[in-house]
């Protein structure tokens, strides 16, 4: 196979990766995007077997070892990916990222060993970069995996003088890296690898559980850059393009994730250098809730077959009746089945919701009484609770003695997903906590109902 053809196939695979990322950034095309990516990767892998670099001959040397190793990889990777539970996916991604980083580091080391003194300075620099970043990614990812899998504490691990140790490690990594470049040699490189692995561990330990996904994303981007660097050393356009793509898109993605989660990227990453031990003495644990963005809500709605809107006093306070109707109309135009579930005492006046919704011209036949709608929640994909609280509070059924005990409620908890639009964690009229807010299937969208709905409408339109 000619070099030209080989390069062309590599370029084609690179194009496939671009299309894959493009596809993955839109819900409608995400699956197809992933398949295109897989196709590109398969193509790129297959073609190496048919291309013999100048000087060597087909079939590849060590073909048995190569095929055996691939087989082992498949035997480990596929079942792991297949069997993992939905909730454990993030740690698996972390692990996969880590092994990728490890592979890149190993490739760099082997190539370095082979080239020996022939290596140009540029090649050595890229090799050093690959080894450092690959190792950091490997060990860091392992730690994030352990945190997410709860094999270790999810809270920031901070030890006395930790930040000095981390800083010292980083300095030595850089120092040894310089040593490798100037002196060459296998030993310094292995020392470098070891130190990098240590730095990876130290770097991730002080990161708190909530920030871990951001760190994974960052390590992912870095791994991409190591692949690009390997591409330089191995003279492969494909690796350069693929690695750079991942590096660039991963960087953007890391920033987007940090923004979406309301975290400071800087704080997350350099927390390790600034964290002080006393930070450990946290206040009483706050119960976690799942809060989402308008985009998340829009996507849930977009892929629902049936949505029930549950309005309450907050809808009236926000005067969001027109916007809620707009949302309902939009969903209906997408073929989603939409109904309003009206609790008899929602609001602060009998018929409060009717007054509001009639003002927004919501057709009367879309309004369903509590007794009509309650049996339908089990066939409902999303119940979206807009400024209501007491009327969906399960305490009315299971907490004898609480002020609303005995009041019939809307059984939104029977829906597959529950979305709450409210401004805060404050309770409603009756002043009692709503357990449903902490339910794993609940997503909270904080903010004034009108503002939130407006954003959801835009996001849904954009899908």
């Amino acid at each position, binding site marked *: 196979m000619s070099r030209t053809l080989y390069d062309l196939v590599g370029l084609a695979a690179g194009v496939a990766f671009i299309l894959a990322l493009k596809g993955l950034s839109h819900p409608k095309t995400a699956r197809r995007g992933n398949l295109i990516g897989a196709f590109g990767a398969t193509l790129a892998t297959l073609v190496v077997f048919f291309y013999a670099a100048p000087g060597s001959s087909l079939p590849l040397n060590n073909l048995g070892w190569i095929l*055996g*190793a691939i087989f082992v990889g498949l035997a480990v*990777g596929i079942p792991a990916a297949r069997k993992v539970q939905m909730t454990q996916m993030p740690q*698996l991604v972390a692990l996969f990222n880590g092994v*990728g980083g490890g592979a890149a580091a*190993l490739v760099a080391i082997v190539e370095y060993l*082979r080239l020996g003194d022939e290596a140009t300075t540029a090649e050595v620099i890229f090799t050093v970069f690959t080894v450092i970043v690959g190792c950091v990614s490997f060990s860091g990812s392992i730690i994030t995996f352990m945190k997410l899998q709860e094999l270790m504490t999810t809270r920031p691990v901070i030890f006395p003088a930790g930040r000095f140790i981390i800083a010292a490690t980083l300095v030595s990594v850089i120092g040894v890296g310089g040593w490798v470049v100037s002196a060459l040699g296998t030993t310094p490189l292995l020392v470098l690898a070891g130190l990098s692995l240590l730095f990876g561990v130290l770097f991730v330990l002080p990161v708190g559980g909530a920030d871990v*996904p951001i760190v*994974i994303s960052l390590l992912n981007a870095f791994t991409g850059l190591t692949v690009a660097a390997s591409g330089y050393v191995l003279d492969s356009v494909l690796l350069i393009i*693929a690695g750079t793509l991942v590096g660039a898109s991963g960087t953007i993605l890391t920033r987007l994730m940090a923004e979406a989660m309301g975290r400071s990227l800087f704080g997350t990453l350099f927390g390790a250098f600034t964290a002080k031990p006393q930070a450990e003495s946290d206040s009483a644990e706050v119960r976690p809730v799942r809060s989402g963005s308008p985009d998340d809500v829009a996507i849930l709605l977009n892929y629902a077959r049936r949505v029930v809107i549950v309005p309450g006093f907050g809808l009236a306070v926000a005067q969001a009746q027109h916007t809620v109707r707009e949302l309902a109309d939009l969903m209906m135009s997408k073929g989603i089945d939409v109904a309003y579930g009206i609790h008899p005492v929602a609001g602060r006046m009998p018929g409060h919701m009717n007054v509001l919704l009639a003002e927004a011209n919501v057709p009367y036949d879309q309004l369903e009484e509590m007794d009509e709608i309650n049996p339908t929640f089990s066939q409902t994909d999303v119940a979206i609770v807009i400024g209501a609280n007491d009327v969906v509070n399960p305490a009315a059924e299971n907490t004898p003695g609480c002020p609303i005990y005995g009041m019939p409620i809307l059984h939104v908890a029977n829906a597959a997903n529950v979305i709450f639009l409210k401004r805060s964690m404050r309770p409603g009229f009756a002043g009692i906590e709503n357990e449903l807010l902490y339910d794993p299937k609940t997503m909270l969208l904080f903010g004034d109902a009108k503002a939130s709905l407006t954003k959801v409408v835009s996001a849904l339109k954009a899908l």
Partner: protein
Amino acid sequence: MEPIAILSIFVLAVFVGFEVVSKVSSTLHTPLMSGANAIHGVILVGAIIVADHSSTNLELGLAVAAIVLATINMVGGFVVTDRMLEMFKGKKK
């Protein structure tokens, strides 16, 4: 390849990378990260090349380890991404 060519490719690929993901919605953050992660599994290609080049046992051993890791990264990555995206499947209409 000439350095300027590599640099140009790098710069342009950075732009492409930035552009294609710059407006992704947050629900797709995780699948996108996972897909990108699978893509860097093509280091497998590099691992195979170095395995082919390997002359010592040390080299071969390390290269074989690299192949195993890279394969896990690539194949597992695409499979797990696909699973994550299952929610976007069942859309009628």
